[in-house]
């Protein structure tokens, strides 16, 4: 399964939940803490953590889309 991750940067309130939940996929900018997307198509073993991040994000700044079956 392919996962497409997008971030809505202006919405991000730099709460950092995404970095805790999925450190391989999200980081924060040093100067203002705003989310940095490290991997827009994370591998399968990251999917659960990415979904968790999207769920925890208080600003709904993480969008996760299923891209259907195997590539």
């Amino acid at each position, binding site marked *: 399964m392919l996962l497409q991750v997008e971030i809505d940067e202006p919405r991000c*309130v*730099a709460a*950092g939940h995404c*970095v805790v939940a999925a450190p391989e996929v999200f980081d924060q900018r040093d100067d*203002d*803490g705003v989310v940095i997307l490290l991997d827009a198509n994370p591998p399968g073993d990251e999917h659960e953590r990415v979904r968790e991040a999207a769920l925890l994000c*208080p*600003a*709904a700044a993480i969008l996760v889309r299923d891209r259907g079956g195997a590539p």
Partner: protein
Amino acid sequence: MPEPKVLPIAARAAGCPFDPAAALYESQKDDALQRVKVPSPLLGEFDAVAITRYEDVKSALSDDRLQMGFVFDPDQPRTMLNQPGNLLNYNGADHSRLRRMLTGAFTIKRVRSLRPMIEAIVEARLDALEEEGHGADLVTVFSTPIPTQVICELLGVPYEDRDDFQRRAKVGLDVNTTREEQIQNLKDMDAYMATLVAGHREQPGDNLLGGVVRDYGAELSDDELVGIGNMLLIAGHETTASMLSASAALLLENPDQATIMRDEPEAVDGAIEELLRYVAPATIMPRQAAEDFCLRDDEVIKQGERVVVSILVANRDAGSGDQDLDVLDVRRPPQPHVTFGYGAHQCLGQQLARMELRVALPALFKRFPGLRLAEPDQKIDYRTTALVFGVNRLPVAW
């Protein structure tokens, strides 16, 4: 329509200070949103829609149409609800502009780098407890100094000044004060912070306030800098201190849970989340609807209506449904909670608060494995009437 009843939104049950009051559970069960009267020292009693279900809290607090009910108004006297620089007095673009000047200091990376400083402060307080001996008050020797010293270090506020600013913070959060007392109290806080800000204007220090002056000083007025400093100083120590005291009290009353905190390092992060969920010491500011909007598809909140949120009872309603969320279970899989709020205003300092709790609580029970209340049959003196829930005194022995 029946006359709305008075509903203190953080009310706790008479016999058990950790349980939400029955009226809050009733409101949660109601299929219609309840309109209630909310007592408030600053505003008198006001009418508001009460939000008590977890999912409703999340949708309401992340909806841009629901705004801070009290936006800074320069023509009104300064109060905690009317202060430039305080993030809780701003909405939308004005809010995120200010917030992003501060978020860099609270990233996961930055907070992790503070761990050694926090550990050193905690160790010193454990030594102080030991020195004080049996009967020492955990609130004054441990829970209050730790977050106070941490925020002083971070902000660059002299720790020697703590007696004055702690007293002013207490007054600021005490609901049993008059509006006049609140206005005078804020004047004193502002005067104190203004001296620190003036120092940074001259020569920006190597700390959070100094950094904000250096990076954004040209865009910010002295008034705004004073407001930012006061907000961080108060928010940074009162809530965390309360959370530490209340958690310690709760663990002393539940020794099996304290043992897990002490002996299972891998359980600590989850245990802290459970304590945060269960204790829920802080409250959410009242909001106001900027336009009509719908909650639960069919419940209309009208433009201009005020809205209050109960974190306490919403935290008992979260999760998937197979868990009894009215009991404390530090080993349960982490349950979502709104102890730090939700949406654009979700707590700026939450990662710092978590770090302080994760360092301090296990260390306390490790240093004093036999920690107990000082008196047999001691009744814990909970503070249930202030804006922030906590414990007044907690004498301990070991």
